[in-house]
């Protein structure tokens, strides 16, 4: 046991690839600016009792309506001779206090309602949310007015009114998130760990909802201050002589034309306050929101950036559909460089099917996506290599040339047909669009061609099926539609990225045999990405095995399956159970693949390889040719005799 435990001992904790939340917030200039302004305003408001300000409520009729920068009154005085600067600072204090407390109250009750309703579901949910709907059915200012009218005017009552009016906003937001979370597996797991409903709700779900509550608070607090000001402006909030930004604005309204500064100063303060809070709130949301975290804010360009320092001179060969040499694709994230693909050569002859096999993170998908420039930039970029498509280098073409080739000469079939097809258009519309993007056909002709394509992928009753939406078809049917789309413009090469992984076995068998037939009929080359050697056997002529961004072995399917030469290939085959051989011992590969931003010197598999020698850990291990079309990147390859699997 001891040595196994040692084998899986934790690696050193590395610095995080992603900068901390605070640093991200500071990188956002607008949000940082908002934070600075807000901090200044809050400091000023907090310091009000300490500052040498005149009493904001003492009237001095003799001094009324002094202009800006008057002697002793920096911002002048109002209609009763009160110092505006003093009232402004004290008023900001009141407005901030009311806004923040109203937000806290609304957030507390709203979130509680949302959490309980979302978690309980059923009748409780219905009852609570219909109550919330009833509150929302009133125009909010009317509701606030009604509450204040019932309770009587006053700052505290205005605060209650604003809090109540904003409860539905929180309740709805939080309920939506909670509904999603309470169907998650970790909630079931907590239940099976013996936790009660209350424990699950407040100890499992609440921590996950908290960021959303904070985001909602940060975006509503500005509104709350505005609403407080609104009620005070109408005379329902702060009562004279107490100053608050809204009531100051209300006071100044009557003399707007004779003394505009009396209303403009509090107006500007409201603007500055709300603006800074909203900018900060948006920044906080961008940092905390997991959907935006994934990089949705950095919009990738239409094609992967190519930053090759030197262009290798490769002469095109005839009969080769794709000739790729030395492809290197990297991702630059923060200060780290992830070498996802570190020099890959691939050759694909006309009508040939090449299987690209590897585990997740081996770089097989990035290799395939690099061909047509589909790796998102930023952060991805192609830094070396050439890819000749029937003799022309894809990496030196213009964007327009590549766009013309995408979906016509080279097309893709992806893993999940449901997310590849647009849910709001019929299958027919999408096929017609794919056809018309590359062929000048009339609608009627395109329709006819679309029906022919569906018939070609063996979809019964094709003319009717054109009118179906993707969700009306089964998974196998959807993948057939994707294959039809890939063949819509006489593709020379199909890049199929795990096209059958999401399908059931019986459906997978059919889709595979359909692909095999179509390949022969149309003489189209297929680059088939998979992790399953069984699938490889069924469809591929040749196989390339990838590990840590490099091809470690390539050869014909039969050769590789019967006599794998690279220790990784043989272990990968050995660790998978095979149907019909239940007694087979499964030898797991200990350890984990290396991370591609910190690749070891020498062979990337050395750390997990039982045969590794000292010289495996230094220098570049070449992909050595063993025989025609067969190569292995290993200094000590397995024997060439067939191994008993």
């Amino acid at each position, binding site marked *: *046991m001891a040595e*196994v*435990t040692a084998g*899986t*001992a*934790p690696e050193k904790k590395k610095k995080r690839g992603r900068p901390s939340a605070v640093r991200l917030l500071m990188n956002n200039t607008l949000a940082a600016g908002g934070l600075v302004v807000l901090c200044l305003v809050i400091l000023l408001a907090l310091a009000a009792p300490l500052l040498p300000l005149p009493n904001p409520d003492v009237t001095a009729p003799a001094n009324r309506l002094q202009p800006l920068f008057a002697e002793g009154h920096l911002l002048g005085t109002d209609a009763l001779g009160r110092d505006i600067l003093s009232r402004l600072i004290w008023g900001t204090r009141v407005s901030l206090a009311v806004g923040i407390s109203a937000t806290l109250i609304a957030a507390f009750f709203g979130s509680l309602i949302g959490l309980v309703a979302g978690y309980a579901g059923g009748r409780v949910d219905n009852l609570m949310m219909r109550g919330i709907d009833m509150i929302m059915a009133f125009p909010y200012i009317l509701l606030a007015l009604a509450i204040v009218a019932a309770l009587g005017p006053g700052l505290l009552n205005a605060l209650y009114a604003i809090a109540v009016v904003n409860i539905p906003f929180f309740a709805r937001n939080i309920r939506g998130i909670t509904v999603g979370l309470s169907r*998650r*597996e*970790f909630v*079931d*797991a*907590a*239940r*099976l*760990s*013996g*936790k009660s409903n209350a*424990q699950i709700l407040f100890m499992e779900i609440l*921590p*996950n909802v908290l960021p959303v509550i904070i985001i909602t608070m940060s975006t509503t607090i500005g509104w709350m201050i505005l609403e407080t000001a609104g009620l005070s402006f109408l005379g329902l909030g702060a009562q004279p002589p107490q100053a608050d930004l809204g009531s100051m604005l209300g006071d100044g309204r009557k003399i707007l034309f004779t003394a505009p500064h009396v209303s403009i100063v509090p107006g500007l303060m409201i603007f500055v306050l709300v603006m800074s809070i909203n900018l900060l709130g948006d920044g906080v949301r961008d940092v905390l929101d997991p959907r935006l975290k994934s990089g949705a804010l950095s919009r990738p360009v239409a094609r992967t950036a190519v930053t090759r320092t030197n262009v290798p001179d490769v002469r095109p060969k005839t009969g080769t559909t794709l000739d790729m040499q030395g492809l290197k694709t990297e991702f630059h994230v923060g200060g780290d460089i992830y070498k996802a693909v570190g020099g890959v050569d691939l050759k694909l002859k006309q009508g040939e099917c090449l299987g690209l096999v590897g*585990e*997740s993170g081996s770089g097989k998908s990035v290799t395939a996506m690099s061909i047509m420039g589909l790796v998102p930039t930023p952060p991805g970029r192609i830094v070396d290599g050439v890819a000749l498509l029937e003799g022309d280098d894809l990496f030196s073409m213009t964007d327009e040339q590549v766009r013309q080739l995408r979906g016509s000469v080279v097309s893709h079939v992806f893993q999940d047909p449901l997310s590849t097809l647009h849910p709001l258009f019929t299958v027919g519309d999408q096929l017609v669009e794919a056809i018309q993007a590359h062929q000048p056909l009339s609608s009627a002709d395109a329709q006819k061609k679309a029906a022919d394509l569906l018939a070609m992928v*063996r979809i019964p009753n094709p003319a009717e099926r054109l009118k179906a939406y993707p969700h009306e078809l*089964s*998974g196998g049917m959807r993948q057939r539609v994707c294959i039809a789309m890939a063949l819509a413009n006489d593709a020379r090469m199909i890049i199929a990225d795990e096209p059958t992984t999401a399908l*059931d*076995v*019986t*459906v*997978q*068998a*059919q*889709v*595979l*045999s359909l692909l*095999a*037939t179509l390949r022969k009929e149309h003489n189209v080359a297929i680059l088939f990405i998979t*992790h*399953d*050697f*069984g*699938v490889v*056997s*069924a469809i591929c002529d040749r196989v390339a095995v990838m590990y840590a961004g490099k091809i470690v072995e390539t050869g014909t399917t039969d050769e590789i*399956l019967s006599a794998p030469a690279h220790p990784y290939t043989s272990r*990968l*085959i050995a*660790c*998978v*159970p*095979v*149907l*019909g051989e*239940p007694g*087979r011992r*499964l030898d*797991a*590969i200990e350890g*984990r693949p290396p991370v591609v931003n910190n690749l070891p010197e020498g062979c990337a598999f050395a750390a997990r390889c039982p045969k590794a020698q000292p010289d495996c850990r230094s220098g570049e291990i070449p992909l050595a040719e063993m025989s025609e079309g067969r190569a292995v990147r290993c200094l000590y390859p397995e024997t060439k005799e067939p191994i008993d*699997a």
Partner: protein
Amino acid sequence: MPEALLEITDAERRFGGGRTLFGKSLPAVHAVQGVALDVKKGETMGVVGESGCGKSTLARLIVGLDKPTGGTIRFDGTDLVAEAKADPRKLARKVQYVFQDPVASLNPRKTIRTILEAPLIHLRGFDGQKREERLRELMEAVNLAPEFLDRYPHEFSGGQAQRIGIARALAADPDMIVLDEPVSALDVSVQAQVLNILDRLKDEFGLTYIFISHDLSVVESVSDRVAVMYFGRIVEIGPAKEVFARPRHPYTHLLLNSAPVPGRKSLIPEDTNTELPDPYNPPPGCSFFARCPRGTDVCKTAFPPLDQTDGNENHRAACYHPHGDD
């Protein structure tokens, strides 16, 4: 012959149904129906089937996360359904569950220690000292270093996370663990690690497994007995070796012929029907009839009972025309 630990009789789970406010009946789907299953102490019962066949619903019924709408489930002689309602903690001490998606089954905001402590506190009532000891044992049992305890789930790979999921199930010291596609989300090299650990733990802790998967080769390699499910029913059940070597039901046949096997080139013809029947409007007789090459008129009358044998009482198929009879 060891006694049956789990006895499921005629279990049914219907979703939907009922009536609207105006008395119109609503459509219902039978996710599981007429399922009868005995699992003996110490064996591994494999359940295979394709998506939508009801295998996960069955799993949730067994651990009490869902209630059957009909039939009985007895565990070690007591009514499991009643117990799940009356005292879910008591049931959780006997039957545990391992989830398909290892990362989704761990709360992203809790450390591994908090996650593993929950069953020790709530189910076993261990105090500080004993808990700490047990945590170490659990981590050792799944080959993870104890330093991992203070980390968060996102810091783990899929295989490690699944081992934590297994450790959590073990923490309750259960008699039976329901494994719902425990290795489907894992990379192949990691899959073997997890399967080997499961195998060792079974002997070490005297566990009984229900192993649910769509991957035939995985089920074959771990199971003593296998039940094949199709459209909410068990269509074939028997010793794993028998079922895989001599499948009786045409559906099992189809499954075995469709599975990709390294070195196998032949595939089934691409234009046969693979559609499942409409669950809202199931066919009257055998649900596999529309896809079955052996169907006759009798198949359309009623669902065949799970009693066709070829001499071996343990290997039964729900088919009027099973393979091996001709």
